[in-house]
Every structure is written in structure tokens, then in C-alpha cells.
């Protein structure tokens, strides 16, 4: 997960309704956040997966409803930011 991915952005910055592919996941140093990232990985946010923001909260873009595989998850922007994605063309 170390290599640089050109054009990768945090999932929290992906525009609504656009598909993207997970490129890598940021591993934080904070223990609580590591637990979060571990769970995100377990839920399927692993490199290579296609994702899309189905809906987001209006004013502050939170929470985000993110589709991955056959499942949709409600995430905080803080949580989504650990997931790096490359938007589809």
C-alpha cells in the first residue's frame, strides 16, 4: 500500500453518484482510528473494489451512503477519508 497512486482522492471527496475504484487505505497511528480502518477493510473497502457515494447529507456532506459490492454503508466523512479512491473516467 505504499506506492503513490496518481489521481487518488479520499472517498470523502468523491462526488455523489460517481463510481471509483479503491486504490489504497491510509493506516493511521491513532489506536481508535486503526480499529476503524481495520473494520473498513473487513467490510470490503479493500484495494480494487468499486465504490460509489449513493447519497450524502445535505449541508456538510455527512453522513455518506457508500455502495461497495452488494452493500451500502453509512459512513462519516472522517471514516471515508481513510479510503483512497481513483474516480472512474
Amino acid at each position, binding site marked *: 500500500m505504499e506506492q503513490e497512486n496518481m489521481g487518488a482522492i479520499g472517498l470523502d471527496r468523491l462526488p455523489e*453518484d460517481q*463510481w471509483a475504484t479503491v486504490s489504497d487505505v491510509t*493506516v493511521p497511528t491513532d489506536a*481508535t482510528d*486503526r*480499529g*476503524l*480502518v*481495520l*473494520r*473498513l*477493510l*473487513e*467490510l*470490503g473497502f*479493500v484495494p*480494487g473494489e*468499486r465504490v*460509489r457515494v*449513493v*447519497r450524502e*447529507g*445535505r*449541508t*456538510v456532506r*455527512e*453522513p455518506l*451512503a457508500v*455502495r461497495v*459490492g*452488494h*452493500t*451500502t*454503508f*453509512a*459512513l*462519516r466523512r*472522517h*471514516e471515508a477519508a481513510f479510503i483512497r479512491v481513483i474516480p472512474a473516467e
Partner: protein
Amino acid sequence: MEAPVPKQPLRIALLGNPNCGKTALFNLLTGSRQKVANYAGVTVERKEGVFRTTAGRQVSVLDLPGAYSLNALSGDEAVTRDVITGHSQEVLPDLLVCVVDATNLRLHLRLVLEARRLGLPLVVALNKMDRARQLGIHIDTSRLARELNLYVTETVSVHTHGADTLRELLDENLPSTGPSTWRESGIEQVIATQHDVLRIFQSVVTEPAIDKDPSDRMDRFLMHPVWGFAVLAVVLFLTFMAVFSGGAVLSGIIEEGFGAVAGLVEAHMDEGLLRGLLVEGIIGGVGGVIVFLPQILILFLFILALESSGYLPRAAFLLDRPMSAAGLSGRSFIPLLSSFACAIPGIMATRTISHWRDRLTTILIAPLMACSARIPVYTLLVAALFPDDAVSAALVMVGLYILGIVAAMTVAWVIKSTDKDHARSPLMMELPAYQWPDVRSLVIGLWERAMIFLRRVGTIILAITIVMWALYTIPSPRRTADGAPVERSLAGELGHALHHVFAPIGFNEQISFALVPGMAAREVVVSALGTAYAMQGDEGEVDEQLRERITNEWPLATKLSLLLWMVFAPQCLSTFAVVKRETGSWKQMWIMGGYLFALAYLASFITYQLTTVLTAS
């Protein structure tokens, strides 16, 4: 049937992600042969049932709480992990059945790979196979079994024969998967496991492109910032309409039934103590509580149906922002909604909240949601306030519900403000695919609620009723200064003593006494008031007479004060018990009781004193 049936019952446990259809499968396997949870008890945190295999072997099955992973994040997941890793008081199951959703193998397969490391005999139940076929998902089951090196069986938990293959499989002698190598995984291992999952998934599943999934279109509408809220408002409105109108009709029928029974007893028994106990004590008291059963069941029917259809998590998504203003997250929505039926299942539902402060806050404010046991007292008082004005009465009722919600949000906000840890609470909540609710699970769920309620009526409430009746019937042994007996019952003495505490908030002796049994169970406040005013007759008549006396005899300030008291006061011992159990702390229980009492006393005091001053001038 040559082989003798082994006598030893098999102990199995169902393991699976939330929303894998595990509970529906459990219901299909065991039917009504389940141990029903009794919320008043201390030990019941588990659902267990029995069934027989095809060859007749008895199986006892444990329905573990849903878990995404054994790296537990929530209290639910910790229970599951502890049971199957042998770190609980439970006997380790002989066999694990890992239930996976065939329409979502990509997500659910990971738990199978993790559970395989436990070393326990393991069977995979490929659930919702019917739905997978409808969606055009093809799964090569035998290849999956080879890849996993495990038995894999297809199940359809919504069909009567959907678990027959699993029943058959349990007669086989199933090998264990070797010594346990499970330990909490780190990030590297999770990624390695996910690679395995992906490889297996791609080799056994062929499916249409996920872009075609109809769920997304529904989500875009139901979670729309405007239309989504409009739909939610309509759904909640219809739910509470059904509770009040449907509940009233059914309650009327039950009321008449009890009235008829009381009439029969009165006609066939001579006047005396025993008849008094039966008619006024037991039939009046118990009947007065059973009339709420329809309202509770209707509310639960809506909650269960909305939850299993997948709608409630979407509602929680919509409400996440508004609730975060009070320091809560959308995850608290479902527990709080359940609390409108009864705080106890609501508090138990907080187990899915992984963040401790959020969970504790939700537990502490759950009793402020107007539970169904408050409805009769609200109805009685509001009717006494507005005898001829149904519209005002209805508006005030709505106002009382809103007052509870506003108070809850305020308390949550205060807790957040005093907490030094300002970290944002996590959300990470699955919005599962929409589906039709499984009728069998709905019926069993409602049956469970009904039994819990009726058991409560048969034990706590019956006991309170009898004790109350006795306190009113036994005269006080105290004598006045000149030696004459005081003309009071024991209950009157108690009310007289409590009156000193409650006089500043305008409660008379009858109310003061009625609050004592009300502490044990809110539902009995109305019948306690009835007994306090020593009225005869069946439930309906008592209500009528009571309403008249309250309308005519209580000052406005007292009526308002008691209404406010009912909104805030800590009542119902079962809630205390469940708070103690779920938080594992006496301190939290007393905090909850203390703040609610203070809030109630303060609100009633201000209301009473202010109204008294205003009405006097």
C-alpha cells in the same frame, strides 16, 4: 433407520453477519420452541431453541448476536466472540453454523474464513438462495465447499422446507478443523484474508454487474434530503396513527371482556373480602394493564417490519445529522424509536452502538421517550383537562410526546458538553438491501413481545395489584390521642406520609399513594388512583368516574403538575434492572434514576407553583 439415534443432544450456534437472515433461519429451525427472553430477569441475553435433525437427533441451537468480525467493536460482537472462543460462561458449542447471505457472499465470506481458524466443527449455510437466483447470481456450491474445505448447504429461511438440507447435514459426523489458531487479526492479516475471499468469490460466483442493482435507485429517493424526510414523516405519522386508533378499538374489546368477567364474578359470588380481591384487585388491576397490549404490539409490528425491510437504517441515516446536534448519532434512532413502545427493548437495542458514550447516553435518555405505559395516564389527565375539546386534547397529547423528545435531546446535549472526550462517534452502519419482511419472523417477534408483557402482568403487576388492594383494605392500627382508631387504611397512612414530599408539587394523598405502585410499573397508576378513590366497577366505569372526579376536584395546577411528572419521572423497576444489567454499573442506574427524579420534581414544582399563582390572580 438402522443406526441408533445418539442420545446426546447436539449443541450448535448460529454465527453470521448482521442481516444474513440468521434469525429467520433460527425461527424456521426452532419454530415456537424457543426460550423467550424475560427482560426482567438478569441472565437472559441469549436466544436458544431446540429442534430435531432428519434422523431425530435433538439439537439445541444458540442464536448468537450478529457480528461482522471477531475483532469485536460493539457489545454484541464481544458476546459472540466470547462464546465461540470459550471466554464466556457458556459451554463451547459442538458445532458452528456460519450463516452467509448468498446475495452478498463478497462481504459475508470473510467471517467464514475467520471462524475456520477457531478449530470448531464448522458448517456453512448459504442462506437466501432463492433471492440469489432471482437476482441472477449463480453460486457453484460444490466448488465453494472444496475451496473452503467445509460442508456447505443451501438454505432458504423464508420457506417451510428451506432448512431441510441443514437438518440432514447435522446427522453427519462433522470433523473439526484442527486446533484453534484464531487471534485478533492485524491489518496485514485482514488484507491477506480479503485476498483469499476475493479469490474464492471470483472462482465460485457469477453475477450481473452491480451497477444494475435496483437498491440504489430506492436509496436515492428514500435518503433524499427533502423527499426522504417527507417519507419518514409519513411513515412515523402512520405508525402512531395505527397505534392510537387501532389500539383503541382492540383495547375497547379487551376492556369489555374484563368487564363481563367482573360482572360474572359479582353475579355468582357473595359479597365479601374474596370477591373484593377478585373484582377490584385482580380483575380491575390486571385488566387495566392488559388493555395496552394491542398498542404495544401494533407499535412493535411496525418497528419489526420496518427494520427487517431495511427501511429503519435509512431513517437512521437521515436523522444522523439532526441527532448529532444533540451529540448522538443515527445509530441511536432505532433504540429510541423502540423506547416509545417500552424502554426495556430500546435499552437492549443499544448493544449495536459501538461507541460507549453514545450508548450510555442513549440508555440514559431512553426512559424519556413516552412509552406505551404512559398512554393511559396521559389519556386520563388530558381528557380531564379538556372534557369537551377533543382537538386540544389530541394536540396536548402530541405535545407531551414532543416534550419527552426535546428533554431527551437536551439531556444528551448536556452529557456531550460535560464530556472531555470530543471525538466524533463512529457511524459505519450497514444499509442492507431492501427486502419483504419475513412473516414467520414477524409473528414470532410479536409473540415474544406479547409473552414478555403478559408474563410481566402475571407476576410483577399481579403482585402489586394484590398488595395495593390489601393496603387499602387493612385498616391502620394507629390510634389517635384519645385512643380511637384513625379512619384510615394502611395505604392512607402511606399516602399521608408521602404527602409531605409531594405537597409542594400539588399532589394530594391519593396521588402520592398511587405513585408508589407506579414506581414499580407505570401502568398501574390509573388503577391505583381508582383504588385510592375506592371506586367499584369494571375498568371502563372506573375510568369514567375517575375522570369526573379529577375534572371536578383537582385544581388545574395539580392536573398539569401530574402530567409533567409522568413525562419525566423514573418509574418502572424493570427499567432500573435493565439499565443496571446493560451498563454493568449501579452508579449509572442511580444517575438515571436521580436525574429523572430531579427533572420531574423540578418541572412539576415550577408548573404547580406558577399555575397556582396565575389561576389565583
